């Protein structure tokens, strides 16, 4: 069953410097039990896209297009309707667990509050359930009543994951779940997310810039750049036969492939390049690329690339 579907989704912000087009015409869908990974550089609009699904963006935001959760249009949903959906149907693991947890509450208390609110448990049940969930995410039993500042980065991230899975939501958004962790802990967190989603058959929307994490977790991969999806496909398609020059560049920039950086910098979201957004940095770009933005080229049922020359290089 289709859980989330977006059609030409645009998320813009008004700022003193001009209109920031953080997400500009994005089409994607997530089916039940599917893990979709968004990869992109900083400032490519990944986090904004994740927060859009939760409608947690500041007040200077403008939405357009469609974003449908089951039968519900989220773009026009009221704050009250969203309060019902958040946490219960769609949950989020925010980036930066230290500032995303209340310093005045112990990690167990965080979970107890969520469970009381969404599962109508009484305090005792909620406490037992909170302990069960936290232990399941690998937090030692004697640390459950600790405050966030007393925990290590990995444990904080585990607490965030516990909060994300507390209500058996159908979709879990994970915003850079491995950010700021060292490699061994990253691996543990990835395995934890994998184990939990395999157990619960949860659909996931994962945001990362780590190709390793994406390959380990994702069923399908979307490459984001400048508020657009440049390439989307199954993990084998995107990593096995990448078609967009940007995807190829990203893969070649990985240390295991020799650490070859992509020339130039990510485009500004205020002053978006004419034509193909990647053309200023693309070594294959020609006059047509600079002038007219290419349409999505359908290579297979799942594989779409926004490039004129896909499958011809």
């Amino acid at each position, binding site marked *: 069953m289709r859980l989330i579907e977006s059609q030409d989704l645009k998320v813009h912000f008004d700022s003193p410097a001009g209109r920031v087009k953080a997400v500009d015409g994005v089409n994607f869908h997530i089916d039940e039990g599917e893990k979709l990974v968004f990869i992109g550089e900083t400032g490519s609009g990944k986090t904004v896209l994740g927060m859009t699904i939760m409608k947690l963006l500041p007040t200077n935001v403008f939405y357009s297009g469609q974003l449908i959760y089951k039968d519900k249009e989220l773009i026009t949903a009221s704050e009250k309707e969203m309060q019902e959906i*958040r946490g219960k149907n769609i949950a989020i693991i925010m980036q930066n667990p230290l500032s995303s947890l*209340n310093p005045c509450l112990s990690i167990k208390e965080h979970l107890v509050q969520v469970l009381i*609110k969404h599962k109508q448990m009484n305090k005792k049940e909620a406490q037992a359930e909170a302990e069960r969930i936290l232990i399941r995410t690998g937090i030692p039993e004697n640390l459950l009543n600790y405050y966030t500042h007393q925990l290590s980065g990995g444990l904080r991230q585990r607490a965030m994951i516990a909060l994300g899975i507390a209500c058996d939501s159908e979709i879990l958004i994970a915003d850079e779940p491995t950010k700021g962790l060292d490699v061994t802990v990253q691996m543990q967190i990835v395995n934890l997310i994998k184990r939990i989603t395999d157990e619960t058959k949860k659909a996931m929307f994962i945001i990362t810039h780590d190709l390793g994490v994406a390959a380990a977790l994702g069923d399908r991969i979307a490459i984001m750049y400048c508020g657009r999806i440049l390439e989307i496909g199954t993990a084998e398609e995107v990593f096995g036969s990448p078609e967009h020059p940007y995807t190829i560049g990203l893969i070649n920039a990985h240390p295991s492939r020799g650490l070859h950086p992509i020339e130039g910098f990510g485009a500004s979201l205020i002053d978006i390049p004419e034509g193909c957004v990647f053309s200023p940095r693309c070594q294959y770009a020609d006059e047509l690329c600079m002038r007219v933005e290419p349409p999505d080229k359908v290579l297979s049922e799942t594989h779409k690339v926004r490039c004129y020359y896909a499958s011809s290089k």
Partner: protein
Amino acid sequence: MKKNDIIQNSNSLMKISIIIITIMVCGVIFAPLICKFDPYTVDLTKRLLSPGTDGHVFGTDGFGRDLFARIIYGGRVSIGLSVCVVMVNAVLGLIIGSTAAYVGGATDEIVMRIVDVLMSFPSIILTLFIIGVLGPSINNMFFALIVLGWIGYARMARSLVLSLKEQSFITAARGIGCNDARIIFLHVIPNVMPMIITFAALHIGSTILAISSLSFLGLGVQPPTAEWGATLSEAKQYLSLYPHMIIFPGIAIALSMFSFNMLGDGLRDFADPHLKKTIKT
């Protein structure tokens, strides 16, 4: 190591101040049990006795009233009144300040401009003006201290709530489906309270001083009511011959201010959640 020493040190000062405050508060509450003499009984045959004579521990004043009893009963007014003033101010300021910050927009602008206007008056002049217009009495002094007192709390609560509002754990709380009321009571107020309580503890000290000074000037508590500032004021004419009359209420004021300030300092260390662990060990 050094940081730890400082914390240990301030902690022991805080312990001392808590002991002093406890003794004072107990003394004030159980005043009738402690004092052998009534603070208002005039006995002109026992005027100006020096400390220790005839069972008058602190001696007597110009009307032969027991000074010890007057200081204990005076504490009822000084400490009790200042705690009331601070509590009213803190609650008022917290409500006004945090509402302004949370609602934002025009409400915030209006409230903060009122605060700015009140801030621009020198506080002592406005206090004197209010008491001057309304006439000197305990009630009017109480009112005058509240007119300006809530401003500090309101500004503090506003700035704290403004910065809290943008914290990602508030967004995260919305992300798990909390409504506004839940966010305010569960996430905002617990994070603001430590700072407000600390500020309040420090404020009690300065309020005791303000009440004493106003009473000393004859603008607050009126004679014959026992109050530290008023007692000082009565004693000033005997300053050179009978200094004990001015020393004891002076000590009472200084000691209470010292203890409340130390308590406030200690609370400030506790209020910082990052120091919590260091203090315990």
